[in-house]
């Protein structure tokens, strides 16, 4: 057993948890809760430990060869700065959401099935992040997607089924585009390993193949990450799911399936040219503005949050599309921050729903006095998402805007500022109608939600407040290593292949 054995554990633990939960969950009471709690805690601990191991690894990269086959022949798992960053984000949110679900899911029947699907979704995301093989990425993307289709429909009410159907159809079309793209790449390069493919592609002349494949992947992963021309499923699917799942979907799923895969393929395999970056920036800016404008007119708490997810993903893509070190740093930092505060907001909306039974902002009001913890954490999250200093959202947005100015893209910088102001406006509405003002008669006797739901909200709010500290030099390695991987571009190939040869 050496250090490297930690890598496959990120897939084995959630998979074993899922199988066990579905096997014993029905017979032994509360066993599924215990299994999921232990497994998600273990995953979170292991992801931090992996970060610790990575610091001491040579070249800051670890490669695990499955079945002992050398990379172009077998499948390998790669743990580098970027995947470690994503692993920590995913498992952090997954742990808190799992704790929250312990009480929240009491409203629904058949908890063991919920936890099985939840665990499979985490397994799919972890597998996607650590894999080093293009087809394997597709397989794990499908695991995470199918689990999320089923989870969106978990309440089996008419709206949920309809949203899930829409999501499943659009998601499957996206997968089909991705699959065709992989087929083109396989035919052209005759290999599936990502590092090997990057090596082959950089030595091969072509005119149309790579741009065409790029467009296919942009459509596929753009659909998965809900960039604006492809966003139609998100405002239905995210509100329909149970609140804890909305937090997972908005918080990490669209980022892992969409943004991470897009970054990995465009920067590390195909090699990002100015053309791709310009397209990414344009889509990011459009999403940023369109999402927030659509959000302004919403009265359903969760639907409003869902539109804000589109807008915030726009910031992430804009930052990464800039292609400068500062822009990528801002984009990744915003990705992490958005995971934290958007999950927190969805958990808040779930708490409001749990206590009052409604999500309509016109009906609620004055909840601040009866649910003090929910109201305060929601205030923190709202200020974060609107970019008020000193919360974490301010720092990442500021970095993105500065990076825009630095590169001379004043138009995009102004877009980002306008988006931020509109975000503030729409969250002031949430504060006013949900938590301030007069309380309605029928909600006089509601109580604060149970402890297991409060604990994750408080923890996430604390991360929101102190998230800005990640920028001080002694903690920055967490972000800097991820940025370094992206900036390395297609020389990713030689790094991975060398590490594998050892």
């Amino acid at each position: 057993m050496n250090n490297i054995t930690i890598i496959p554990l990120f897939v084995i633990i959630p998979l074993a948890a899922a199988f066990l939960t579905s096997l014993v969950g029905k017979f032994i009471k509360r066993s599924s809760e215990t299994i999921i709690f232990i497994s998600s805690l273990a995953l979170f601990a292991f992801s931090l430990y992996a970060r610790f191991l990575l610091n001491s690894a040579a070249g800051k990269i670890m490669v695990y060869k499955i079945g002992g086959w050398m990379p172009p022949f077998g499948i390998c798992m790669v743990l580098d700065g970027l995947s470690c960053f994503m692993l920590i984000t995913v498992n952090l949110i997954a742990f808190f959401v799992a704790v929250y679900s312990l009480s929240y899911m009491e409203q629904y029947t058949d908890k063991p099935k919920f936890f099985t699907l939840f665990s499979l979704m985490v397994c799919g995301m972890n597998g996607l992040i650590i894999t080093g093989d293009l087809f394997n990425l597709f397989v794990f993307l499908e695991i995470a997607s199918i689990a999320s289709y089923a989870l969106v429909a978990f309440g089996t009410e008419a709206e949920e089924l309809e949203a899930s159907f829409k999501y499943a159809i659009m998601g499957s079309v996206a997968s089909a585009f991705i699959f065709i793209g992989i087929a083109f790449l396989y035919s052209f390069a005759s290999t599936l390993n990502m590092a090997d493919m990057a090596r082959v592609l950089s030595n091969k002349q072509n005119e149309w193949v790579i741009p065409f494949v790029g467009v296919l992947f942009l459509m596929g992963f753009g659909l998965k990450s809900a960039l604006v021309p492809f966003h139609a499923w998100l405002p239905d699917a995210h509100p329909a799911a149970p609140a804890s799942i909305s937090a997972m979907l908005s918080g990490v799923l669209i980022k892992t399936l969409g943004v991470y895969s897009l970054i990995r393929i465009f920067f590390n395999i195909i090699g990002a040219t100015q053309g791709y970056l310009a397209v990414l920036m344009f889509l990011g800016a459009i999403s940023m503005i369109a999402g927030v404008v659509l959000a302004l007119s919403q009265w359903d708490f969760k639907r409003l949050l869902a539109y804000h997810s589109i807008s915030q993903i726009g910031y992430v893509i804009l930052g990464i599309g800039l292609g400068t070190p500062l822009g990528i740093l801002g984009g990744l930092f915003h990705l992490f921050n958005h995971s934290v505060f958007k999950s927190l907001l969805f958990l808040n909306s779930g708490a409001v729903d749990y206590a009052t039974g409604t999500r309509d902002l016109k009906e609620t009001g004055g909840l601040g006095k009866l649910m003090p913890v929910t109201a305060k954490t929601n205030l923190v999250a709202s200020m974060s998402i609107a970019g008020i200093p000193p919360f974490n959202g301010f720092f990442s947005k500021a970095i993105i805007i500065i990076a825009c100015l630095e590169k001379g893209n004043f138009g995009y910088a102004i877009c980002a500022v306008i988006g931020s102001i509109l975000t503030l406006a729409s969250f002031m509405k949430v504060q006013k109608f949900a938590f301030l003002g007069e309380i309605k008669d029928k909600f006089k006797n509601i109580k604060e939600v149970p402890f297991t739901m409060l604990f994750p909200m408080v923890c996430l709010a604390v991360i929101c407040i102190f998230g800005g500290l990640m920028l001080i030099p002694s903690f920055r390695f967490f972000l800097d290593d991820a940025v370094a991987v992206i900036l390395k571009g297609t020389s990713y190939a030689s790094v991975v292949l060398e590490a594998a040869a050892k």
Partner: protein
Amino acid sequence: MRNNPETGMTLIVKTITRLTVGLILLFGIYIILHGHLSPGGGFAGGVIVALSFVHLMLAFGKDVAVARISKNMASNLESIGAMMFLLVALLGFLGGSFFLNILAKGNPFNLFSAGTIILSNISIGIKVGVGLFAIFLALVVLEKSK
């Protein structure tokens, strides 16, 4: 041809089914076990096994098939099959690596060759066979419970 899920189809269909369903099941098992020697394998064989149960159910009605394998049992068996495959994968850790094929490879062209491949095929076969049957059962039972 009335297709009534409670009582099944006519006598002719039932008689033919009684003759063929065992053969179909046997063929599925053959395909699973010979996955490393001939076309087929755990997945195709598993679907054939599932189809033999579906066949039984369409001909004789729901109750006869459910008497042989119920929905709960199907879903438990599926979890067990999945666990088995994961265990085969974990077995590789004994030799040092996830999914390492550690058993003796044997002579090619023999039934007992290819190390862990045959174990993987069997576990996938169980998993797929009962899993797909569980899907079918869930869909049909639901329709009748209205």
